[in-house]
């Protein structure tokens, strides 16, 4: 009996295949779009080519969070219909040219998206980009199904609230065996956790039991960044930017320390400290 050697794959023939990751949650408002935008920037900052797809047809927001809303001329449905080429529909980011956006349509409905075509599109885009990240809409209806179909990795975003945990749990169930989702706990307020008025990361993960990818604190500054359309990951300092960069590093395979969120000093001196380079 001799061993069957696997056939060596000639290096030249190996097609590039980027990673396709869907960001989902079930519950709305937990930070999927914000996470998609910021992770996109963080990965692009590492030198990767990143394509972001907004799958929230009819209620698009990834464009406005990225500050690219005025540049969107064509959208996902135009590409799926074949009326526009992919290259004409994608919008290059203002700050980092290796990050692009394929916006959702604002005027069409989610049930107009053909699942098979969506899958094929994501597959195509994986040949061109290191990462294809799909921003999933809230809920578990058609929009969710289409967002998930092209991906083979999933990140679930959860806030430390009972409704969110319940919804994420349901979504993890629906994602099924194809995925081994990783968890980001978003909008944690350590001070409240300490007072027993908010679930801790451990509480959340005792129910969800998922590998923890990252923890992000509740940062009012996010509102300002969305006002301006300048995602926080573009900043060089601040805990939230750092958290997104750490998550990106982990996704890229780096061995990153376990995520934590410190209790930030509040009040005037705390804010002053934050302005001058990070308070701990």
């Amino acid at each position, binding site marked *: 009996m001799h061993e069957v050697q696997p056939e060596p794959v000639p290096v030249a023939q190996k097609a590039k295949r980027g990673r396709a990751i869907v960001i989902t949650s079930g519950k709305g408002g937990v930070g999927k779009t914000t996470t998609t935008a910021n992770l996109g920037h963080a990965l692009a900052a590492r030198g990767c080519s990143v394509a972001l797809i907004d799958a929230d047809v009819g209620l698009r927001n990834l464009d*406005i969070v990225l500050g690219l*809303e*005025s*540049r969107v001329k064509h959208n996902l449905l135009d590409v799926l219909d074949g009326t526009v080429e992919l290259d004409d529909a994608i919008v290059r980011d203002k700050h980092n040219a290796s990050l692009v956006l394929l916006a959702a349509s*604002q*005027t069409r409905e989610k049930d107009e998206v053909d699942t098979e075509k969506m899958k094929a599109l994501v597959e195509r885009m994986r040949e061109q980009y290191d990462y294809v990240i799909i921003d999933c809409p809230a809920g578990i209806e058609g929009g969710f199904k289409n967002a998930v179909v092209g991906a083979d990795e999933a990140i679930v975003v959860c806030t430390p609230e009972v409704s969110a945990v319940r919804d994420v749990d349901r979504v993890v169930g629906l994602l099924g065996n194809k995925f081994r989702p990783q968890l980001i706990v978003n909008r944690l307020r350590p001070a409240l956790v300490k007072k027993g008025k908010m679930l801790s990361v451990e509480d959340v993960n005792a129910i969800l039991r998922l590998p923890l990818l990252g923890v992000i604190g509740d940062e009012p500054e996010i509102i*300002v960044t*969305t*006002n*301006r*359309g300048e995602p926080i990951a573009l*900043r060089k*300092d601040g805990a939230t930017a750092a958290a997104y960069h750490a998550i990106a590093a982990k996704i890229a395979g780096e061995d990153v320390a376990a995520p934590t969120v410190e209790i930030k000093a509040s009040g005037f001196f705390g804010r002053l400290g934050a*302005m*001058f*380079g990070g308070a701990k």
Partner: protein
Amino acid sequence: MIEFFRKLFAPTNSSQTAKERLRLVLMTDHLSLAPEMIEQMKRDFIDVIAKYVEVDRDKIEINFEQQDKALAMLANVPILAVNRNGGGNNGDGGKKTEEPKTVEAVAAATTAPLPRRKRRKKSPPATVAPSNASPAPAG
């Protein structure tokens, strides 16, 4: 540190930026959600223009574009002839040129004032000839 000075000297605060961005994006959203209204607007617009110049209705293009801080309507209207009686009817014996000339009209549909571009007429204005003169043959 830089953030501190940015905040101090920021020309607009972020809520004003947000308000402007929202206004523009909602206008764009509303326009894309009302194709029938836009079709009707195009028809009305063309009807008005057609009082002054004869236009090639089939080749008219009207688009909306976001230009920096404002939303603009861009119309490209091929002109076949300029009406002698301008403002009333189509006129008889209007000088017909062989190829349509185009005039770009820029109409601003914005909240912020945009500098208005005057209409550029590429063909020389038609002269009103005495009644029994015949138009010179076009070259």
